[in-house]
């Protein structure tokens, strides 16, 4: 995105050319990948022509002027349907843009369309019975999942159908598809980015963030969307730093804690080796690496499931009474589980949440960032239910969520980025976790890593 923005600003390419090229790629590749639910060619070209006219007249809106992007299908978009990947909202057309969509429009970005997702964001595989399952571009022919719930965002960015996207992340829904598709995805601190106009899954766990090819592009998008929003009372009044300026490439003296036990040690051998290698690469660049474990993380899966099931059922209760048959089966089942959780269970889960948050804070009191796998496994095959991790057999869904949801629980910023490939050519994802509202250091660490490796620059051959 940063490169495209520069090329547009210096008139090496026109916004119309850039948008048309992306629309052509979508037409050629999306029938196989199923990354898009709605494509908006006419509106995109009209916006691109307006951006071009502004440039010719000497008016520019900044580094995203004329740069195309596409949001996950749960962001409200004025006069463009917003289905949440569901049948229930198939004809829902919002009257207004979500805050972050409006902010990107004001920054000059051009919306290409809306991206596929697990129905109502309630699943880490990225499955959708209504609009088709998104295929992983690194292995589209063998039907591997793109990861979810922001599956279309992961596939579209990896395949070059859109240079950037906004996903949402309740248990890992930005970082899981970023990991499985070999791109860079940032879940900011809870409260850093407005959720106004974004369909909720679980209010206290939902985060909004960028999915791009590099930390530099994440920084660019985050700078455009972050900051207080009166329409979202959970947003912070803290000033938004210049994230791009933080990307110095310098990690000398950066204190990095490699998360062991539940995280790196439980990953498959390929993933574990790649993450350990990434830690060594950062060490080679001057970072100081030690090892750390989190004890309370063992209870996060249950406590997180309790909170998400309770909040999700609260949002979906009316439809679950009147249109339950219109949900895809796995989502309907997860929503039903919320009926069997009591208020006392919810509060107990919030107690565990407090313990974990404190423990992560303590780990970061002596370190600048923590390092872990984003996912402990690479992209599973569609329909695969069981897998084997470093510490034994696991349900695939639980395995996908394992390393990411602790930081939805605690609200810390966390970024997934590629750190290697398996012998079969599937991407492996690293996760960098930082202190609350210190996305700048997280992005600096990932950017520094991306300056000394080229994993993020690789592209799927099928795309």
């Amino acid at each position, binding site marked *: 995105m940063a490169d495209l923005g520069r090329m547009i600003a210096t008139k090496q390419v026109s916004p119309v050319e850039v948008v048309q090229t992306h629309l052509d790629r979508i037409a050629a590749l999306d029938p196989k990948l199923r990354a898009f639910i709605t494509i908006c060619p006419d509106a995109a070209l009209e916006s691109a022509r307006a951006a071009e006219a502004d440039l010719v007249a000497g008016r520019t809106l900044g580094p995203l002027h004329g740069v195309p992007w596409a949001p996950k299908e749960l962001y409200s978009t004025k006069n463009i349907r917003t289905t949440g990947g569901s049948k229930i909202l198939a004809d829902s057309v919002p009257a207004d843009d979500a805050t972050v969509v409006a902010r990107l429009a004001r920054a000059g970005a051009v919306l290409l369309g809306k991206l596929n997702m697990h129905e109502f964001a309630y699943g880490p595989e990225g499955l959708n019975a209504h609009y088709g399952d998104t295929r992983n571009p690194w292995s589209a022919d063998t039907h591997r999942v793109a990861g979810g719930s922001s599956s279309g965002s992961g596939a579209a960015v990896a395949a070059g159908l859109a240079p950037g996207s906004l996903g949402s992340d309740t248990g890992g829904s930005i970082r899981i598809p970023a990991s499985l598709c070999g791109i860079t995805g940032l879940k900011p601190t809870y409260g850093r980015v407005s959720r106004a106009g974004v369909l909720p899954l679980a209010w206290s766990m939902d985060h909004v963030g960028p999915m791009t090819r590099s930390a530099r592009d994440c920084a660019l998008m985050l700078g455009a969307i972050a900051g207080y929003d009166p329409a979202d009372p959970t947003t*912070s009044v803290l000033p938004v730093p210049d994230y791009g300026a933080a990307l110095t490439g310098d990690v000398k003296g950066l204190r990095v804690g490699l998360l062991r036990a539940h995280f790196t040690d439980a990953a498959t051998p390929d993933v574990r080796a790649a993450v350990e290698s990434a830690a060594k690469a950062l060490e080679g660049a001057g970072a100081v690496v030690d090892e750390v474990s989190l004890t309370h993380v063992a209870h996060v899966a249950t406590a997180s499931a309790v909170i998400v099931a309770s909040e999700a059922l609260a949002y979906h209760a009316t439809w679950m009474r009147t249109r339950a048959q219109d949900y895809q089966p796995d989502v309907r089942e997860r929503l039903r*589980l919320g009926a069997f959780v009591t208020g006392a269970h919810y509060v*107990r889960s919030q107690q565990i949440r407090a313990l974990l948050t404190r423990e992560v804070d303590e780990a970061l009191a002596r370190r600048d960032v923590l390092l872990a796998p984003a996912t402990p496994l690479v992209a599973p095959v569609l329909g695969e239910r069981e897998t084997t991790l470093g510490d034994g057999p696991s349900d695939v869904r639980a395995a996908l969520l394992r390393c990411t949801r602790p930081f939805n629980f605690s609200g810390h910023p966390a970024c997934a980025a590629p750190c290697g490939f398996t012998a079969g050519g599937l991407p492996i994802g690293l996760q960098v976790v930082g202190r609350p509202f210190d996305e700048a250091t997280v992005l600096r660490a990932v950017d520094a890593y991306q300056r000394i490796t080229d994993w993020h620059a690789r592209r799927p051959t099928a795309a």
Partner: protein
Amino acid sequence: MLARMEISADSLRRTAALAGFAWTDAELEAIRPAVQRLVESLAELERLPLGAVEPTTQYRVL
């Protein structure tokens, strides 16, 4: 709170009804294994010594 026990279709039906949902026997039977797993996991949470821990009620918004 639900104690550790074998979950019957009847107990599922009663709990769902209390929450305002009228699901069929087939629908309840379909989710019974998942509810059983959930209840067993919740029983583990019950055993944790969390008494004095203040639950998270705000999300660090500054």
